[in-house]
């Protein structure tokens, strides 16, 4: 790993940390994503996250229409592949976005003694926007914050069910093709609401 990559990962981490601490805010990894030369078959920003988080000391699984993706990630990071129920990190590419609710149901939500074993899901979506129909509340948010996540429907209900019993649950990192990321830790409550009330 050369010096530029080391600096780049520090920047990626600081942005992910900030995004996780302030759910619903958007951070851009586009500069760091532009430095990536190897095409694994997922979004470059998702690849930044893979290089930030995965190595031989953790586990992952990947869902994609491209079957080679999982093997390529494992070869790049030395991270062992595990079945979805046991993986610490689960990647869903845009091609299988519709599977998010059922994946969410099956991945690990941790245990009451070790809630950190709840999975982190890295999910590719079409677009992330601040402001919008999703109203977020919880730690890291002053009053409420709004955002829009363009992906297939049904995941909000599945997530609410998975995260119903805090501290159990899953943490989500959404990634879009512009290199933006948005985090939804398990503490964030989501409600859907039109931006302005019709008078």
């Amino acid at each position, binding site marked *: *790993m050369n*010096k530029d990559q*080391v*600096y780049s*990962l*520090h*920047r990626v*981490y*600081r942005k*992910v*940390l*900030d995004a*996780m*601490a*302030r759910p619903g805010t958007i951070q851009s990894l586009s500069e760091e994503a532009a430095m990536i030369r190897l095409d694994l078959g997922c979004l470059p920003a998702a690849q930044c996250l893979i290089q*930030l*988080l*995965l*190595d031989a*000391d*953790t586990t992952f699984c990947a869902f994609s229409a491209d079957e080679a993706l999982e093997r390529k990630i494992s070869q790049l990071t030395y991270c062992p592949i595990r079945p979805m129920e046991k993986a*610490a990190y689960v990647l869903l590419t845009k091609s299988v976005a519709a599977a998010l609710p059922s994946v969410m149901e099956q991945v690990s939500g941790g*245990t*009451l*003694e*070790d*809630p*950190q074993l709840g999975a*982190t899901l890295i999910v590719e979506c079409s677009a992330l926007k601040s402001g919008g129909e999703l109203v977020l509340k919880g*730690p*890291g*948010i*002053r009053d409420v914050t709004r955002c829009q996540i363009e992906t297939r429907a049904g995941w909000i209900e599945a997530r609410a069910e998975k995260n119903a019993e*805090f*501290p159990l649950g899953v*943490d989500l990192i959404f990634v879009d093709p512009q290199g933006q990321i948005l985090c939804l*830790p*398990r*503490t964030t409550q989501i409600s859907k609401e039109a931006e302005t009330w019709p008078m």
Partner: protein
Amino acid sequence: MNEHINFAFFDEGSKREIRRATLKAVAIPGYQVPFASREMPIARGWGTGGLQLTLSCILPEDHLKVIDQGSDESVNAISIKNLITSTTGVQITQDTEQATLIQSRHRIPEVPLSAGQILVLQVPTPEPLRSVEPSERLTKKLHAEAEYSGAWLMLFEQIMKYGRMATGADHPVRTAGRYVMAPSPIPKFDNPKMDHSEALILLGAGREKKIYAVPPYTSVVSLDFEDAPFEAESFEGKKCSLCGAEHVYLDEILDADGTVRYQCNDTSYCMNRRNRREEN
């Protein structure tokens, strides 16, 4: 900056381990995430947990402030700063407002923290129930069941013995309404600064191998009883003998002739006030 050492001292694998644990800690406020704590070139118990957090997230353009019991210039603070600057080349500052990353032992600065800052606290004993339950396996179970009578009992016994809650520092808090957490040995005076803080607060215990966090705008409530409310140290009627500040955390200083005077514990806060006075 030493070019023969990797940026921010650690190898990339160590950083990944610390980063994974930290992200989970932020997602589960107040929960102590176990992690593979690294050996450091300073002794355990001297801030290795805080250092690991700082080094894992530092950026070359950061302005770093390191304080030890309110002082920017104590031996511990200087050694930590030397290690960090020699491996990252970051700018050091004493000014709280200018700092983007603050590592601290036993104090939260007097100047309110802002959204662009991260506060890293060094923690010797992360487990608030340790004094009532020596077994780690059992304290993990108590946290799982949110069974915190031990913490309440400890405070109750203090009231029975001393007539008030006698925690000098590290008064336990409840974070986001769920986990009881050790706020690190900050004085009770600083506990309220954690509640709905604008800055992200990361806590690291190197020897005990735990990382935990308080995200911004998160409720942090000091444990107390309806009829024995939480009270921070009071410095009513006292002020700093150097800068005249009131309503700050003061050190009591006994002069050679036996007179008692008070001085700001936060040295950079005190110095800024005196500099400003001189300018005017």
